[in-house]
């Protein structure tokens, strides 16, 4: 049976039904609306909105981005209008589109995460992405992402407070990403997304100061792709929940590497800044690849890398 072009790409990630396996990564696509001049949002797999906190956050001072070789660093510091404004002002606008909206949540404490989950539970969103890996905030953030026990605690708390699918986003800044993946899976994560940014730094040799306002920042873009593919592959060997792979995806070919490594869906981040059409183009490229190979469903590729 030949599959329709649409059915070929459709995926269901822990109950979140997407038309394509290509999502947009948190913090790189705003609330989606910012890119609606370029992209038909209904053609995006899912929109993961900017990291959201209980109270509004102003983010970090000073310079917030820097270009690096084949990548960029950012230290936005989770600037966001707070979860209530998201629910009352932004979500109603997004509800006009037929695209699953996933909210990336960040807290300073375990309770924060729970409270965020509770408030978002009936907001009309399709799922939560628990960010335990933000390198750009002093409290919480990455601390939860490098310690299996804290990570589990956060996940259990969130699961308690919501009926929505819970994706947990892992940090690459760890010795053993598999340990973290297993911990959050055991704690009830419905899916795992990775990677968040690698912690980096750049120094301005003209004034002997860090280039970024927050001294260090999160590295993303093509430069990190090999690390991201490796981690997705490692985690795919170890967990049963679906994986959302990201880190440096610019093209359908890049996305296919992640899928073969074991990702059931992918997200494009930094690439949006370079090519605003990328989320749709990558999905089309994947469909073309499937067609050329005579495959009928994206699932035929997931985790099919042969390392024997």
């Amino acid at each position, binding site marked *: 049976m030949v599959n329709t072009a649409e059915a070929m790409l459709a995926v269901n990630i822990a109950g979140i039904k997407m038309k394509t396996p290509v999502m947009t990564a948190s*913090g*790189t*696509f*705003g609330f989606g609306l*910012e*890119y609606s*001049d*370029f992209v038909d949002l209904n053609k995006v797999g899912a929109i993961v909105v*900017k990291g959201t906190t209980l109270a509004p956050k*102003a*983010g970090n001072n000073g*310079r*917030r*981005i*820097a*270009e690096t*070789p*084949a*990548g*960029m660093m*950012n230290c*936005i510091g989770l*600037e966001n*209008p707070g979860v209530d404004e998201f629910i009352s002002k932004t979500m109603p606008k997004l509800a006009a589109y037929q695209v699953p909206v996933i909210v990336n949540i960040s807290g300073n404490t375990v309770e924060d995460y729970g409270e965020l989950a509770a408030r978002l539970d009936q907001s009309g969103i399709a799922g939560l992405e628990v960010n335990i890996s933000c390198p750009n905030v002093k409290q919480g953030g990455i601390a939860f992402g490098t310690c299996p026990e804290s990570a589990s605690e956060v996940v259990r708390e969130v699961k308690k407070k919501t009926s929505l699918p819970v994706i947990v986003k892992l940090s690459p800044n760890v010795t053993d990403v598999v340990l973290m993946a297993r911990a959050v899976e055991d704690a009830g994560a419905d899916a795992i997304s990775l990677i968040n940014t690698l912690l980096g730094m750049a120094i301005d040799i003209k004034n002997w100061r860090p280039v970024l306002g927050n001294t260090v920042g999160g590295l993303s*873009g*093509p430069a990190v792709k090999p690390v991201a593919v490796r981690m997705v592959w490692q985690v795919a060997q170890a967990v049963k929940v679906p994986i959302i792979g990201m880190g440096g995806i*610019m093209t359908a070919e890049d996305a296919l590497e992640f899928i073969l490594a074991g990702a059931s869906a992918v997200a494009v981040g*930094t690439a*949006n*800044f*370079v*090519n*605003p*059409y990328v989320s749709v183009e990558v999905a089309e490229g994947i469909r073309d690849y499937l067609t050329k190979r005579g495959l009928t469903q994206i699932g035929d590729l997931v985790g099919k890398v042969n390392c024997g």
Partner: protein
Amino acid sequence: MTKTCVTAQVMKHTVLAGDVWELVVAAPEIASITRPGQFVHIRLTDTIDPLLRRPFSIADCDTAKGTLTFIYRVVGRGTALMTKLQPGDTINCMGPLGNGFDVTAKRPLLVGGGMGLAPLLLLARAFCSRPATILMGGRNEQELFWPNLYATVCQNIHITSDDGSIGHHGFTVDLLPELLKQDKFDAIYACGPHVMLKGVAAVAAQYDVPCQVSLEDYMACGVGACLSCTCENTSGKRHKVCTDGPVFWAQEVVW
């Protein structure tokens, strides 16, 4: 018609002076809807080095020919690579971005310093029919090739230079009060280094003339999505330079 991302062919590319270049590209989709003060986010190559786009103000725009003009200074890797562009080469242009200037003034005074004079050029053209005045500043005579560019679009041109090699010896802000006393300007439009804008805003406030300033910041997305370019405004709200700006009313800005 709306923001878009197009492949634009280089029509003309020449050195204006020293390390300042003028680049003309064909991008009719953008040219047809451009307002003064807007900018374009440029991707130079389809390689990943450099990776990010670079923002440049639209210094001129010919809707008939469908062309955009950028005037840029070589400051780093991207602009250095940019100088290699030859007529016939293509770049990718995303735009028009940003809000643009309010162009309702009857007697506008434009104040520009350094590369801040690029976006004011298109603004001056929009004001062409009115008696626009420009006050321009630069480091030295060599940098002030700008009078030629403004000759046809501004009625009055006032010049200051840091070293006194051309025009008034000093900064634009020094000359500003004098001009405001002489003439009844109903709006000031300023673009240039932050410290200059701050000075202009202060003088404008003192003389009670409405003032718009065009700001710069490091930008990843250019469309309000990444939050790399935000700043707090005087009402305590967060503003994005790329979409809420780059043009702001001076009194909105926390200096």
